[in-house]
């Protein structure tokens, strides 16, 4: 039913896979980001936005990732909750700070872009607000895990909260359709294909893939670190008992 998680659910197989997969994703991310940035900086200026349109190449993939990482967090939490799998829980725990970082990046670059374009760092538009709420969900998840001392309880409580937070993702995505506001509507993933010129679309997609690969690499590195931390703790417990 879940082929990739099923293959990787064996910790030994996961450690063997991630050992070479993490640096490989990192190299892929670097190459894609360099290519995307090169295309982005050599693309012609927008007739309305001028040079500031290039902020889009940093901003939009970060906004995509803020939602994608939450989906990963929710999926890993589901697997951790249902199958009580320690590795899935480590994956959820490792994903949350990365997702929060992407969300902060999206909000910060959005503010830098909004200032010249809308004349304001921040507007209480529906989509901006729901991304801010997404950040609050990440923070609540991390705060909950940090304030429960028992790691097993913290893991399950966090997983429940992550699944509750999944309710928020559709609101983020569809808020553009619910409230017709300042923020422009979806222009890449829409019925009838993208409305964007290929000069901008290619660098945007390249950077989107670069962000995805970077997340994959960092996620694997963080899961490996978490696995090692738990092994070290278990070894310390054994040593203390002996």
């Amino acid at each position, binding site marked *: 039913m879940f082929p990739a998680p099923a293959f990787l659910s064996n910790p030994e197989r996961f450690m063997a896979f991630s050992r070479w997969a993490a640096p490989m994703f990192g190299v892929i991310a670097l190459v894609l980001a360099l290519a995307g940035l090169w295309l982005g900086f050599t693309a012609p200026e927008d007739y309305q936005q001028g040079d500031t349109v290039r902020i889009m190449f940093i901003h939009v993939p970060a906004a995509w990732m803020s939602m994608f990482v939450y989906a990963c967090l929710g999926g890993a939490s589901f697997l951790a*909750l249902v199958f009580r799998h320690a590795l899935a829980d480590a994956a959820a725990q490792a994903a949350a700070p990365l997702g929060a970082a992407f969300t902060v990046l999206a909000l910060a670059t959005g503010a830098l872009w909004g200032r010249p374009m809308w004349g304001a760092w921040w507007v209480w538009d529906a989509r901006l*607000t*729901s991304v801010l*709420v997404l950040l*609050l*969900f990440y*923070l*609540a998840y991390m*705060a*909950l895990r940090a*304030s*429960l*001392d*028992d790691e097993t*309880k913290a893991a*399950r*409580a966090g997983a*429940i*909260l992550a*699944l*509750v*937070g999944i*309710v*928020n993702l559709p*609101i983020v995505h569809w808020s553009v359709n619910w409230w017709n506001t300042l923020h422009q509507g979806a222009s890449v993933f829409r019925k009838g294909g993208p409305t964007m010129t290929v000069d901008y679309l290619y660098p945007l997609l390249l950077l989107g893939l670069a962000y995805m690969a970077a997340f994959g690499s960092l996620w694997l590195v963080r899961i490996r670190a978490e696995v090692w931390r738990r092994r070290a703790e278990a070894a310390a417990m054994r040593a203390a008992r002996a």
Partner: protein
Amino acid sequence: MSRAGALLAREVALAWGKGGGPLVALGFYAGTATLLPLATGPEPARLAAIATGMAWVALALAALLSLERLFERDYEDGALDLIVLSPVPLEITCAVKCLGQWIATGAPLALAAPIAAIALGAKPQLAPLILACALVGGLAFAFTGGIGAALSLGARRGGLLTAVIVLPLFVPPVIFGGAALDAFANGLPWHAGLALLSAYAAAAVALGPLAMAAACRNALS
């Protein structure tokens, strides 16, 4: 059913009894509603423009503050362990506790909401809609708030953690209720906001107890 009824009676009696739960919540609500004009300035025109919104947000905060006693006290004195042993499914138990919370503090707060809004300068014609929104919204606040209260059982700084967990969950009902009130005040169609608020409350009533029960089992394990 009689067991659930007994539990509901216990919850409401505990809330109404020692400590005067609803009165404290009402006092907090009145205090917040008094502080808001002191902070924004007394000009009637400015106050009237934001009166319903302020009354609505103060209501959400008052609902948040009374969440603390929903599970925490039963967890600390061991009553929750006994309640879990009863043949009533834990999901039903959690739903009954939230319903008791709504009867004991949500409904009195809802009755106070129109008064607070009108005192701040909202049009008196708004009163029925504010009451309706506050009653429905109170249900959403109680059932989503219960999730946060159950999740933070046994945590350090439980009360503050509950607020951090619950405030993002309060965003949709606050938006929908505020939109309905704003639309009514401006003579626009307001049904959509109230309908969405009711839908959110219904979803919270249906799904919230599942999450609460899972969280309680986890805390007691």
